């Protein structure tokens, strides 16, 4: 059987009659499975969910083995790399990555095909503080603005070697990258200086800088602070930074660790600060640019300790690294199916502040569904269809 799929990036999908989808198992929410479940859509929203095979009156009924809510990637990277990061300074909290994104990038379609309907995109970690990340749908109208769910969910940054890599001390003819920080220590110094200056700028206007008002809002907890920290020492630094801000009375950071591959090492630090963790793709031990060791049971360990865990693809695109497969690997590491489902739906929805719209299959929420050919998250199952805002945008259903 040959399967041919023509994916036109911008072509509108099936419109007209509202869809009705029926599945042997409808995974409406973690812990809620409806056998013989039926989802009826109305426009861009879910109208009703019910049990029992539908009578075929009127609308087309699509039948699949399983349905879940559209998945939410807590750290997708569909950016043009360095071009989406303003590198004239290391600290740019006022910049939004949204402006640098390309709605025609094939990366959105890749996410969509794998069942990811909502994604959080952060600026790549070339800057210490890169600016606002954005929560948006991976398909739909042809503009980033129209797809955006939240433009102010979180300010993003990185701790570790990445922001300083490429910088070098000035010698010979200076280049743009002849500047500090050149080490992890310098990166940490930039973080602390940024917060201390931002806080002080209320009383001493001379210490203000572009974005200091944003950082003051972050200190008040109005935006989350997503810090990419792969290794043990970097996660430690991030947590200590939060505790220092609290201790010195500057404010309460709503810290989220992104790409916390080595979070399994010192979970107590995260537990005592209640820090949620977004995990990067599992691999064979060492992962990512920092070669951090990512144990397979990390998700289970953190869940058992009571922490919020979300999974992510961190921009990876192969069939073995999709978000659905990450949920499968997390199950291999010990997570139950419901916990894995939560890690790719309800938990990231809550962390990103969009739980009122996405994350579960419930009446009134956005009509974002993933139609599976078998048990979700197994490699022997495949995403046969994706409904986004009521439209069947990915259709690989057998005829």
């Amino acid at each position, binding site marked *: 059987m040959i399967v041919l799929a023509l994916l036109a990036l911008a072509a509108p999908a099936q419109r007209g009659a509202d869809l009705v989808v029926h599945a042997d198992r409808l995974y409406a929410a973690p812990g809620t499975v409806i056998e013989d479940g039926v989802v009826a859509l109305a426009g861009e929203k879910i109208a009703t969910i019910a049990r029992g095979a539908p009578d075929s009156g009127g609308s087309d009924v699509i039948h699949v083995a399983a349905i879940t809510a559209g998945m939410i990637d807590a750290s997708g990277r569909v950016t043009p790399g360095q071009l989406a990061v303003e590198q004239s300074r290391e600290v740019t909290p006022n910049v939004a990555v949204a402006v640098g994104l390309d709605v025609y990038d094939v990366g959105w379609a890749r996410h969509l095909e794998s069942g990811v309907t909502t994604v959080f995109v952060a600026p790549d970690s070339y800057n210490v503080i890169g600016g606002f990340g954005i929560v948006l749908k991976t398909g739909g109208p042809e503009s980033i603005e129209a797809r955006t769910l939240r433009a102010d969910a979180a300010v993003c940054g990185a701790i570790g070697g990445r922001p300083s890599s490429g910088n070098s001390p000035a010698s010979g003819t200076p280049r743009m990258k002849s500047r500090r920080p050149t080490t992890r220590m310098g990166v940490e110094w930039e973080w602390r200086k940024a917060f201390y200056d931002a806080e002080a700028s209320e009383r001493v206007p001379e210490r203000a800088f572009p974005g200091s008002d944003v950082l003051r809002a972050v200190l008040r907890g109005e935006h989350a602070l997503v810090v990419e920290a792969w290794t043990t020492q970097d996660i430690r630094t991030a947590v200590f930074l939060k505790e220092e801000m609290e201790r010195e009375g500057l404010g309460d950071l709503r810290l989220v660790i992104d790409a916390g591959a080595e979070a399994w090492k010192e979970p107590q630090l995260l537990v005592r600060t209640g820090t949620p963790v977004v995990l990067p793709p599992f691999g064979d031990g060492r992962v990512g640019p920092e070669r951090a060791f990512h144990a397979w049971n990390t998700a289970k360990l953190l869940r058992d300790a009571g922490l919020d865990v979300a999974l992510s693809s961190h921009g990876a695109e192969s069939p073995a690294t999709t978000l659905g497969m990450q949920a499968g690997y997390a199950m291999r590491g010990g997570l139950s199916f419901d916990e894995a489902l939560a890690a790719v739906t309800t938990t990231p929805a809550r962390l990103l502040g969009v739980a009122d719209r996405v994350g579960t299959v419930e009446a009134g929420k956005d009509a974002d569904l993933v139609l599976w*050919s078998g048990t979700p998250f197994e490699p022997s199952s495949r995403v046969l269809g994706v409904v986004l805002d009521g439209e069947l945008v990915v259709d690989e259903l057998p005829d």
Partner: protein
Amino acid sequence: MSIQRTAAFPLLAGLALFSSAAAAEKYAVKAGTIVTRAGDDVTNGVIVIEGGKITAIGSADDVQIPWDAEVLDVPDLVAFPGFVEAHSNRGMDRANENIDVAAFLDIRDSIDPVNFYFEDSLRWGVTTINVQQGNNCVIGGQGMVVRPVAMTVEEMLVKPGAGVKMSASPKSGNSRATQAQALRRAFSDLRAYLEDLVEEKRQGFDYARREALYQGRDLEGERAKGRAMGGGAWKVEGLELVPRGEIDEKQEPLLDIVEGRVPVFFYCEAPMDVRIAVEVARDNGFLANTVLVLGASCWKAADEVAAAGRPVVLDSNLVHRERDPVTGEEQETFVPGVFQGKGVKFALQSANQSSESLWFQAAMCVGYGMSREDALAAVTTSAAEILGLGDRVGSLEVGHDGDVVLFSGDPLSVTSFVEYVVLGGDLVYERAKDVRAKHLLEGLEPPNTAPASAEGEAAGEAGEEGAEKKDEEDDTEGDQR
């Protein structure tokens, strides 16, 4: 579960899974489910292995376990034949030599038994591997089928003379035209060389014999006899006058190929390469022994492949994607489905990361609509048949090698682990003793990572104890900062 073990010692850190115990003459596996790949599954089954071969297999009621057999009693596990990797070029020193025609090189000289690839193969249930040279050649060297155990190549050997690698895709530096010419010339040079050899013999020249003696080649027994040339496409009259031992050692492997004594694994990266491969093989009489190793885009030449009537080994990339540069429309093709539809026998390859091993490839095929039966065949029985080992591996049957993999669940499920591997009646892998598996799963003391701090480590000690620690730490932190 009861296992009687004789001494097992760890050989290198991380390689503690190999047992070099004396081979148990008799071994029995009692498993909750046996997937035989040769008929129905057996529930509560027993496999008896004697002298390295399966002598009995069936339900526990029907099969008698010899009183002196070592027994692996694992009622919760699923027994499976072990995956067969029909083509691989990992596990050795550099995959290719620089010269175009290197058929005289043998992979036994470059296989590295302690290479991580073999250890990983066991971890993922791959028990038979056809190691061939890489694709960057015109005619590569001779490969061998091995099992991923033991410290020496000889002990790993399953089948010598497993085949020679060729490539219709250009070696780096060549264009496709040059590559095709090089392939053809290798055989026309062989023919010319053999004809010269016969002519010299007829004229009474002794040069070839003296050269052979000088090089220390063997001229005894079979090698001292001339043999008429076999092969279907072309012949050299009078070759029986020339003792085999006098044929130059660089040319002889090519002669073996033309005479159909050796299988050929012919790599085609692009659809246009299939024609060249089939033509070269047909013109030189070895098409009947050829297995095509195809790149993902070769699905476009599926009709040509089917017409050639030969089995294929497919690329590890199962889904071929193409994007129209003008419209941006993407076309996806599930490659194994195309060949299945044309009735071509095919086997799969694993991708480079060990987590995309053969179980994953087979599972992906099921996802794309292939029946479980066909998907499993592509990584067990079909692969074994392609290697000429259909009577030895790929399924659990009486008379086959005693190679059994015990899974914690469905072999195609992401949550299943390989718990034990028995090869030839020896228990060679136990996950409980696999140090690296512990690293991967639990992050237990992997080398070269930062040590955890006392304050940071203890998971699950939240609450009071955590609060106490926090108070202590606050004081010291203040000083440090």
